[in-house]
């Protein structure tokens, strides 16, 4: 990521029209941190998101290293297991809130959306910059939380544990969870403002001739994403505010000790966080539509179906949140309804995959790096999506809930889907962003390594689930004991 400011005059082979571009237009640090240019903001997002990805990767490495030994390789006794929990929480929180959610819309969306649309900029450039700084502030607060105490609630912050857990490393008071939660609150508003900006841009800044059904499919995907960002994220905002109030004032809304209802927290949380997985996957699907059409040298097959299935996923995605709560105290009646609705979301996803395959059919496929990642996406997303149907089935989920099966499913969708799409997009638009071409051979090797490494890590977890192992334990489990929640 050090080559973001190349000297285009000497880049060789890349035509530079006027010798002046967004990278050379202004110089110095101030021209970056106060920029209102969507392209520069996109690049700043890209750098930040990839840094967060690196950080989250380190946490993941700690987790996997710990589990290399049945008794724990790093934290070996009861007193230190909470560090495992912290790593576990941070891996989840950083990857979800700092990488997957803002990643594609913030970095690639900001960069290419106005260009693809034909607009001069996004609708509210200042709001766009403000959104980026909300992201940075949220990230810094999350890091502060690690420093002052550490958070071991899991990225879901389930009550009542998140209300009672407390660690004070520095003697500054037990506020780590509050910092983390407030950081996520700010990240939520960053996401909301990005979504608002994109919706208004697509409504009001389409030039004449750019009708809705002429928009590139990436923009349709971003539009669907933005709908979710605007409609779902505020509920996360109030949930987190209530959690902060719960910890500081003891309002008791989610705390059974005061007559509160912990299941209500899960309703609040998943009303956002299930649609949020579509915030993560939809933009990657948009990138797929672009990349597959480009490298199959064909027009996309079933344009309208792909466009509208994005919207369908966004809407149906709101109706399935209860499938996270099947064994958690939710009523059987609602669990049945949610199980049924969860199946419905597979339909628009399958429509997309089918259309991508149809696009590739008899196309002249060029296996450039983005296309390699796209093929990886199709393979991994198919596995992730189909195991999602298993998990959506009420009776199966009661058995598999909180096991490695869920961990594997989630990573197949989130890494195999979103991150493969993100990587495809980064390679696809890399020349556009930097003015330089990456090394094709290295790119392909990277893709193959990612693909093999990912499958080696996560495929065994489906099999481990046979023993109904919970995926959150600091020791690898060796028995068939099922710990019910």
């Amino acid at each position, binding site marked *: 990521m050090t080559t973001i400011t190349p000297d285009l005059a000497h880049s060789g082979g890349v035509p530079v029209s006027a010798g002046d571009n967004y990278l050379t237009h202004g110089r110095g640090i101030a021209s970056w941190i106060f920029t209102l240019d969507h392209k520069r903001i996109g690049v700043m997002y890209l750098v930040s998101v990839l840094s967060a990805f690196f950080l989250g990767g380190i946490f993941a490495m700690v987790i996997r290293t710990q589990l290399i030994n049945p008794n724990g390789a790093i934290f070996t006794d009861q007193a230190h297991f909470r560090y495992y929990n912290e790593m576990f929480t941070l891996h989840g929180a950083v990857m979800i809130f700092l990488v997957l959610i803002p990643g594609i819309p913030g970095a690639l969306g900001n960069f290419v959306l106005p260009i693809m649309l034909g607009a001069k900029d996004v*609708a509210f450039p*200042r709001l766009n910059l403000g959104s980026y700084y909300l992201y940075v502030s949220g990230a810094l607060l999350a890091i502060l939380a690690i420093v002052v105490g550490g958070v071991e609630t899991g990225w879901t912050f389930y009550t009542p544990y998140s209300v009672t857990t407390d660690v004070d490393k520095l003697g500054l008071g037990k506020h780590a969870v509050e910092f983390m939660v407030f950081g996520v609150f700010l990240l939520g508003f960053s996401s909301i403002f990005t979504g608002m900006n994109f919706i208004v841009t697509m409504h009001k800044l389409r030039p004449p001739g750019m009708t809705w059904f002429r928009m590139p499919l990436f923009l349709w995907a971003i539009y669907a994403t933005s709908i979710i960002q*605007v409609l779902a994220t*505020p*509920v996360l*905002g109030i949930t987190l505010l209530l959690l902060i109030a719960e910890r500081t*004032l003891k309002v*008791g809304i989610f705390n059974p000790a005061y*007559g509160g209802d912990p299941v209500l927290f899960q309703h609040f949380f998943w009303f956002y966080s299930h649609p949020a997985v579509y915030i993560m996957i939809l933009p990657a699907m948009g990138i797929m539509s672009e990349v597959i059409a480009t490298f199959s040298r064909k027009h996309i097959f079933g344009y309208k179906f792909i466009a509208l299935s994005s919207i369908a996923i966004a809407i149906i995605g709101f109706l399935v949140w209860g499938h996270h709560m099947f064994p958690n105290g939710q009523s059987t009646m609602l669990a049945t309804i949610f199980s049924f609705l969860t199946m419905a979301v597979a339909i628009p996803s399958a429509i997309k995959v089918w259309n991508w395959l149809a696009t590739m059919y008899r196309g002249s496929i060029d296996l450039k790096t983005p296309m390699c990642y796209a093929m990886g996406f199709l393979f991994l997303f198919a596995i992730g999506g189909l195991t999602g149907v298993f998990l959506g089935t009420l009776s199966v989920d009661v058995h598999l809930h909180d096991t490695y099966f869920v961990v594997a499913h989630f990573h197949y969708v989130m890494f195999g889907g979103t991150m493969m799409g993100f990587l495809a997009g980064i390679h696809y638009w890399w020349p556009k962003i930097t003015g330089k071409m990456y090394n094709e051979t290295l790119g392909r090797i990277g893709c193959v390594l990612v693909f093999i490494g990912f499958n080696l890590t996560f495929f065994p977890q489906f099999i481990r689930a046979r023993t109904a192992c919970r995926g959150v334990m600091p020791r690898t489990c060796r028995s068939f004991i099922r710990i019910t929640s």
Partner: protein
Amino acid sequence: MTTVAQESHEPHEHGNEEHLAHHWDTPKQQFDAGKLGIWLFLTTEILLFSGLFCAYSVYRANHPEVFEYAHLYLNKWLGAVNTIVLIFSSLTMAWGVRAAQLGQKKLLVTLLGITLACGGVFMCVKFVEYKDKWSHGTLWAGEYHPHVLPGGVTKADVFGPGGAAAATPTLPNAPATQKAFDGPIFEGSTVARAPAGPAGLSAAWVEKESAREEHLSVRDTERPWTGPVPKNTQIFFSIYFLMTGLHGLHVLAGMAVIGWIMLRASRGEFGPKYFNPVDFVGLYWHVVDIVWIFLFPLLYLIH
């Protein structure tokens, strides 16, 4: 919020359109985009509040008796006054938008000033109400130590400062003391009133009691509480403080942005061609009003 409204205020190259940012073609396009932006923002505000409304609905559905009992602690007349104040401020705000559209600068500044003052009055009334709760110990669940009954009656009011029972604090959730209160306090109680005079309660007590009943009758005689004091009353106050607190924060934020556009209006920045911030701030202020329109019956007018 402010960022949305500020968007239109950027340096640009269009000579004759002072407030048109560079990426817009026409003021109409810029205005429509800002309007859509602010409506989307208001959507997020409504969804933010919807979490609290959801919590309210869930607890009211499960514990209706808590709400019916605990709302007696609230003074519905103060709530009604605040409703009228906010509705009036909504009128002056909408009128202000009209004044801005018609280029009536002085009128605009005056109307914004009135709106701001209404916000101030609202917060003052809110302060009086909160102070009342504070002094009665009826705060959110973690700080819920009530020492009065609905209507602001303390044990000392009833038994006198030297009364035997006055030694222990009177708490609605405490059944033993509740029994002593059932008769005198609530008209519809099934517990027969103790006879006055030498054989029964002291004359002074009866006198105090009738004074207190008068006091109660001013506040709430329509439907006095008759049953036992319900469990988990504290949840009502948690919800009360969260809902009115978040709403109050929005009022304060609204006052801040109204102050800001008032400053700009006094500099003559708004006119028929450019009044976007006034309109957008107005929309926000109306949503704050709408939230209160729902909070008032939900919290104060339960019966």
